[in-house]
């Protein structure tokens, strides 16, 4: 890919990220109430989007052939359980990633 194309992709990502952050400041000046449908979607959309993103991360896993997504499933369960237990982002992500690296490099080869 050309440097110009990469630059364009980064610029688009930067503008769109800023757009989501500046939107409430443009839409609501504190005088107008937030429309109920916006408030509703704001509450229910994030868990659905994050669930979608977890699936997105697993899109290239070979479920039918070896290793059948076993390293991914083990690591995800460990991250979730560790996080329910300790509620420490860094610990959960760090331990889960290290475990996954060990599994794919030395166990499921």
């Amino acid at each position, binding site marked *: *890919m050309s440097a110009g194309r*990469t630059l364009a*992709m*980064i*610029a*688009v*990502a*930067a503008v*769109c*990220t*800023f*757009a*989501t*952050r*500046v*939107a*409430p*400041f443009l839409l*609501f*000046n*504190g005088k107008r109430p937030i429309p*109920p*449908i916006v*408030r*509703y*979607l*704001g*509450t*229910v*959309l*994030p*868990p*659905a*989007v*994050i*669930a*979608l*993103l*977890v*699936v*997105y*991360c697993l*899109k290239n896993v070979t479920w039918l052939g070896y290793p059948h997504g076993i390293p*991914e499933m083990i*690591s*995800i369960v460990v*991250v*979730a359980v560790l*996080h*329910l237990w300790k509620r420490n*982002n*860094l610990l*959960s*992500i760090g331990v*889960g*990633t290290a475990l*996954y*690296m060990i599994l*794919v*490099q030395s166990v499921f080869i």
Partner: protein
Amino acid sequence: MKKALRPAFTATIPVLCGYLFIGFAFGVMLRDAGYAPPWAFLSSLTIYAGSGQYLLVSLLASGASLATVAVMTLLLNCRHIFYGLSFLEQFHQMGNAKPYMIFSLTDETYSLLCSLKTPEGVDPNAMRLLVAILDHSYWILGSVIGAIAGGMLPFDSTGIDFAMTALFVVIFVEQWKSSKHHVPAFLGLGAAALSLVLLGPQNFIMPAMIAICVLLVALRSRLGEEVAQ
């Protein structure tokens, strides 16, 4: 401003640890995808969104269209729309710093600002600005170190991109704990998995996203009342 530096640094230490690590993983992933350290610096300086930049790496690697980058980034970050609502008045008082405060309102900075305690004699606005600047610099630092040191690591970095999956699982657990009902989470999982099976890894995300929005709006009479409370 000077007096605010020490308390601001103390408040941001947890973010320092998190951003150095997650930023480092981003830098390594970007490097593995074939991009030199200046690209990591530029991304972290101008985009400044953890999950958004992780996603960008896979979009860059797959040569996605600019429209896909725009849609995916907007969808991924649409939760940010609701962060600003808590700071409409506060940021307005901050004058010239307001645009930067809006730009730098990440998940982590948002959560710090929500619970920030300013010591006596320290300007709260200066402290908020310093927290935002410090967090941003940790993120840039972590990603540049990752992009530079990635190739010199004394160990095999295969699988480090699992940090992205782990990050989303952590956010998923956080939202699971704070939601009153889990229909949206199941709906997201179900729609995404079904769409992936039917349409394959290249084209599944937009149909799944549309299905999720339509179903959530359709379920509004059921889910909406609890949410409104």
